[in-house]
């Protein structure tokens, strides 16, 4: 059965919530702006609503159903304890502007999480308010810009490696920088010499991902940081891949000045079909004074306070200001803190080890049937990168991805990073069992062999999914973004 749209089945008269019906003689003080037109919102009874969304959910794939090997996206198991904790009324049902005496526990969560993030990264300070990774990047880059401006040094250029996530250049541009690309060396890592040659008084900084998006550890990061610092710039580290090294490498030890942490990647807050995320940014001593508001600090009497505009002059006078209306993604803070406490230092150490082991196991189990361009560069970190070299003509990376759907798996990340042709980036994460990996490897091996042999059925895969391939061109050429039906049901 195909699931109808709510606009097909709902009606404006149906309601799944019991509410008092408006009295005819009720006072109206709406300044003459009472709504006169119909809105066009269809309603469903509760049974219909539950059924509609339950059925929709079954057309989705999630980690709960199987391996979700999206490279660089870190789709790992989402513990249900975290969901339970985030729903305690003391966390879920508090208002951001409640008086300080009524939110000491919430501020304690922010303080504890901050302390852990600083300990794990070896940095100096942390800004919790960014709403997701890209927002954290913006925060970090703005801190760099604020620090430069504070010393009267207006630089124009941000260096970004070719292999970077798209958010890196987009963020730098959003923050007013001109983006210049830095090339990769043959081994998939940053070309240190090329970078050094480009440094100068116009370069505000460099944005580096470590481990990088080829799944490789940037061995020269410390040297790069030294060079950038010597040239008066700052080092931004994209923390999307922190999962590979958490508990084992502290970015602060490598000379990093700012790094965002995707709580929904490394610390397992659920991705929810596209968000919400949370992107706290850890900062070096040089950048911490410029962090955005608000932040949490402890008073002499032991009570916690929220530093906002009013108290910023005393506690964070150089703050760059506010990046979101309230204090950040509290719901994600409670989940991430729960996760960190559950794992502990030993658990996180074990987790990054297993994440890297799982990726290497995938890499070495498949390098005989798929081209692995950097397999010779040593062990990979938490993700294994393959290219489309060696596939039969007419068979693409996309075909392999769609064929994996028929095998019961979500595809890996494809066509990223851009530095590898037809890239396939596989990140199994530490929460996969060997049995699950073996099933996945067998499936991908079988698909790869068919791809090399030029099996034509691959080109119109998937065959067994809720949908066959979609006409994406039509969607973009003549976009239908809302239901065209009458607005008055």
């Amino acid at each position, binding site marked *: 059965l195909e699931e109808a749209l709510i606009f097909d089945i709902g009606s404006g008269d149906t309601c*799944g919530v019991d509410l008092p019906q408006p009295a005819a003689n009720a006072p109206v003080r709406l300044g003459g702006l009472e709504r006169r037109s119909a809105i066009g919102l*269809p309603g469903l009874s509760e049974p219909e609503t539950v059924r509609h969304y339950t059925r929709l959910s079954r057309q989705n794939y999630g980690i709960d159903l199987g391996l979700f090997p999206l490279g660089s996206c870190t789709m790992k198991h989402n513990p249900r304890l975290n969901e339970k904790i985030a729903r305690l009324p003391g966390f879920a049902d508090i208002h951001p502007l409640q008086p300080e005496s009524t939110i000491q526990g919430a501020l304690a969560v922010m303080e504890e999480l901050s302390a852990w993030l600083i300990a794990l990264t070896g940095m100096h300070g942390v800004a919790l308010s960014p709403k*997701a990774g890209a927002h954290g990047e913006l925060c970090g880059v703005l801190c760099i810009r604020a620090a430069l401006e504070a010393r009267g040094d207006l630089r124009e250029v941000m260096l970004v490696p070719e292999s970077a996530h798209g958010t890196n250049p987009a963020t730098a541009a*959003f923050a007013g920088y001109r983006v210049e690309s830095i090339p990769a060396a043959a081994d998939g890592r940053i070309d240190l010499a090329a970078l050094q040659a480009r440094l100068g008084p116009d370069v505000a900084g460099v944005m580096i991902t470590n481990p990088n998006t080829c799944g490789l550890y940037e061995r020269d990061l410390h040297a790069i940081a030294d060079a950038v610092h010597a040239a008066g710039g700052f080092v931004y580290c994209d923390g999307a891949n922190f999962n590979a090294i958490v508990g084992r490498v502290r970015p602060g030890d490598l000379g990093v000045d700012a790094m965002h942490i995707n709580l929904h990647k490394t610390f397992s807050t659920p991705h929810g079909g596209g968000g919400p995320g949370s992107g706290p940014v850890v900062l070096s001593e040089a950048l911490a004074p410029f962090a955005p508001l608000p932040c949490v600090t402890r008073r002499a009497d032991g009570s916690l306070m929220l530093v906002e505009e009013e108290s910023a002059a005393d506690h964070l006078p150089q703050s760059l200001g506010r990046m979101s209306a309230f204090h950040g993604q509290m719901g994600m803070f409670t989940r991430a803190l729960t996760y960190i406490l559950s794992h502990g230092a030993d658990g996180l150490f074990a987790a990054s080890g297993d994440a890297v082991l799982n990726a290497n196991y995938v890499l070495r189990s498949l390098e005989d049937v798929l081209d692995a361009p950097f397999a010779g560069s040593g062990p990979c970190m938490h993700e294994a990168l393959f290219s489309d070299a060696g596939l039969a003509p007419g068979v693409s990376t996309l075909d392999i991805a769609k064929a994996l759907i028929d095998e019961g798996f979500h595809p890996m990340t494809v066509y990223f990073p851009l530095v590898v042709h037809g890239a396939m980036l596989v990140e199994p994460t530490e929460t996969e069992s060997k049995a699950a990996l073996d099933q996945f490897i067998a499936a991908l091996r079988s698909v790869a062999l068919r791809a090399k042999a030029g099996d034509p059925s691959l080109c119109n895969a998937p065959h067994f*999914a809720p949908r066959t391939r*979609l006409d994406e061109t039509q*969607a973009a050429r003549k976009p239908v973004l809302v239901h065209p039906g009458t607005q008055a049901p």
Partner: protein
Amino acid sequence: MRYLPLTDVDRGAMLDAVGAPSIAALFADVHPDHLQHAPIAGLPLHQSEMEVERHMARLAGQNRAAGAGPFFLGAGAYRHHIPASVDHLIQRGEFLTSYTPYQPEIAQGTLQMLFEFQTQVARLFGCAVANASLYDGSTACWEAIQMAGRITRRKGAILSSGLHPHYAALVQSMARFTGDGIAHQPPVLTAETDFADLAAQITPETSCVVVQYPDILGRVSDMAALAETVHAAGALLIAVVTEPVALGALTSPGEMGADIVVGEGQALGTGLQFGGPYLGLFAIRDARHVRQMPGRLCGETVDTRGRRSFVLTLSAREQHIRREKATSNICTNSGLCALAFSIHLTLLGEKGLRALAAENHRMACLAADRLAALPGVEVLNSAFFNEFTVLLPGDARLAVRQLAHRGILAGVSLGRLYPDQQQLAHALLVTVTETASEDDIDALVAGLKELWP
């Protein structure tokens, strides 16, 4: 560790397959000086569910839940009753643990939901098109200003004094780096909004005028005339809605001529959550500007068998394709909050949203009347939805703190929002939703009476 499936036997077999003597050997690329060979010192070791739960429950217990007593806070975050089925449904693993629907064949659940969500938001705001969500209302407001700049190729934004001060602060922080010119004043205590003043400030450099509806003092005004003036100057009118339930009772901004309508969607489905995660709503009145929009868009199409299907589209605007030329750097948005919003709104439907809005307005009118009857207390607003400004006989920040000690969360003092505005020190913003009972209102009235007998 309960979350790690590998056994030591597995690890051994896999290391053999990989050809590495140990897991440590896989980290050979890390310089020894930078590698921790054992768990980082100073952090506790792993804990059982029971231990973690005890700790977190203790912290939760140090907060006063809004539901624990009379509660009248709003100012950009609203407490409404959320049907139990909403939270049940968003916890379905197939929604909760899925990724951005980049593989549409196995993500139609999320995609169809987003298409329905976009339609609901567009209709609620009186717009043609809405996107698939942004982080929250405040960042959506800044994205709207940026979009207006792209469309008008101008860099001057005029913010109403009625715009939420945190939103204005964010805009000013960002504009410092982008070089946009921002005009903004704190509000003054009048019953009317500042639309006339805004019109007077428009120049040929103005890209947009930003108004909030209802505004930070709870006031509502017709923005149609302002829209005409703004359009005549070649600029855009941006309307910010922080309480979407209001649009069950009020004419939508789109109908009054707003070009971009952004909002905070937290009130439906998501709950208070101490400020986040929330839900950025973003819609435009003229569909021709769709390629200038930020954020993800879900569109209808067909699969090879001709079945109606949904897919993320127009992604040439986005960072993962366009990189530094993208309309925004946003990637992860608020998908799950959008789902909660859409489910809540589906349960309500037209009839339910209107009834909910009417009930909010009824209770707010009732509270306003009872408060206005107190000696020395004045209600500023002539028109409001579920939130209004009360002028107290003394400092409102102090009153809020004192009432909190008596278990009454009385509202948001304007002194907290505008610490440097002495003229606002006596003003208290009171929000009354359907979750407040008459007893709650009476408790607030009695509490204020005790402070100023």
